[in-house]
């Protein structure tokens, strides 16, 4: 068990001062604490400081706002806020589903979207959905400068992000669906050994937009728990463009699934073997294209 000291800045300005003051000291950020406290209980770190983000008052940091080009979600927005948001539910079902499949009610009420991203778990549910949606991360530096990074580039490896020591994840941006898109086929498939409180064996997030002629105009697909980071399956997405969702042959489905599996380099661990993960991924990829004609 690591003993630690929590420092609670109340504004973004104070937060910058605290980060600067910590300098080279060993520090971590605390957001919802549902992951952090579990991690700290299992190891001993000397002289750890935790910079508490939970008391920072800043409406952009803690809430969801609609912009002209898309949705801005503050890093401290809770998973439950995502679940309850009507715009997300309507426009981005993949994000709604991934958020409501995360852990349990008690955890969703405190866990944050920023925490899910910055933990950089290869099986992060919400992160996987965000990759499929081509989201970007707005990063704030202590000198007040900001930079935007595509969420795919944000993840460097398991539990590693490109966030520097003097930076904090501020907001997440999700681009609006295309103006010509009239229907979205969007969802989150999570395969695990039980339904609740489960870490995925493999997961797949998809967000496919079609125009009024039912032609696919944009597709986003991401896979989780199948490689060291969440992967955007670009060639599989490109493969779908101009196809009609309700009219896809078995051989095209196979070709599509092969395009997805190329991105997987899973490991064998206590939850599943690498072989099993690939097989499951292949099959759930195909199932994405099983759409009942309506």
């Amino acid at each position: 068990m690591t003993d630690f000291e929590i420092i609670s800045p109340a504004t973004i300005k104070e937060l910058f001062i605290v980060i600067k003051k910590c300098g080279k000291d060993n520090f971590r950020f605390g957001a919802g604490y549902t992951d952090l406290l579990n991690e700290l209980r299992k190891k001993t770190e000397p002289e750890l400081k935790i910079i508490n983000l939970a008391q920072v008052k800043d409406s952009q940091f803690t809430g969801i706002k609609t912009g002209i080009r898309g949705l801005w979600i503050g890093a401290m927005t809770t998973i439950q806020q995502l679940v309850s948001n009507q715009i997300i539910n309507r426009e981005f079902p993949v994000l709604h589903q991934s958020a409501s499949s995360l852990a349990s009610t008690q955890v969703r009420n405190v866990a944050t979207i920023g925490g899910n991203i910055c933990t950089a778990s290869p099986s992060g549910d919400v992160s996987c959905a965000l990759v499929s949606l081509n989201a970007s991360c707005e990063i704030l530096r202590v000198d007040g400068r900001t930079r935007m990074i595509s969420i795919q580039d944000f993840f460097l490896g398991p539990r590693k992000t490109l966030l520097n020591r003097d930076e904090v994840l501020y907001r997440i941006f999700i681009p609006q669906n295309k103006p010509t898109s009239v229907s979205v086929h969007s969802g989150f498939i999570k395969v695990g050994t039980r339904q609740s409180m489960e870490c995925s064996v493999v997961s797949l997030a998809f967000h496919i937009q079609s125009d009024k002629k039912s032609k696919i105009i944009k597709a986003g697909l991401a896979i989780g728990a199948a490689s060291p980071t969440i992967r955007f399956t670009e060639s599989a997405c490109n493969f779908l463009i101009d196809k009609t969702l309700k009219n896809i042959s078995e051989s095209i489905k196979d070709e599509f699934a092969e395009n997805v599996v190329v991105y997987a380099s899973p490991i064998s661990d206590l939850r599943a073997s690498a072989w099993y993960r690939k097989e499951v991924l292949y099959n759930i990829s195909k199932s994405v294209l099983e759409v009942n004609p309506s």
Partner: protein
Amino acid sequence: MMKGNRNRKEKQLVRISFSLNGQKVEAEIKSSTILLDLIRDVFSLKGTKGACREGECGSCTVLLNDVPVNSCLFPAINANGKNITTIEGLTKSDGSLDEVQEAIVQNGASQCGFCTSGVALAIKGLKYHYKKLNNSKKINAVLTPNRKDIKKWLEGNLCRCTGYVKIIDAAEKALINE
């Protein structure tokens, strides 16, 4: 507060104040104090249970501003200014049971009892959740959770005795009695 070099290793204490079961309370705590320990060890409210201490079992559930959270994964410092309700606060001031507790008793939804305080608070939280939904809604139809919604809501509460059926029966009963 600091008394020279001898105490340098002593962590500074932080003062927090919050509402605990409707009463304003204050505490001086180490910043690393966990809410569950504060409730049990400082305020001696032993109804809140600690079991897995990693957010899996839900026996430590309390309501934070009417929303269920795992108190074992919650730094007490972040309870500052908030309203915390524990199982002791659910019981009415005259000692009679809350409708959720009553429904649990009536339906035999408690056996060994270890998970029960967490379950009761989670169900109470579901009641508040639907109250809020119905108040914020524009249409007039009253939303009530079905068994599936109840199961989903209670997924963070483990019970090793009842097999859950009676717990869900109790929740259904408590929620319909609005």
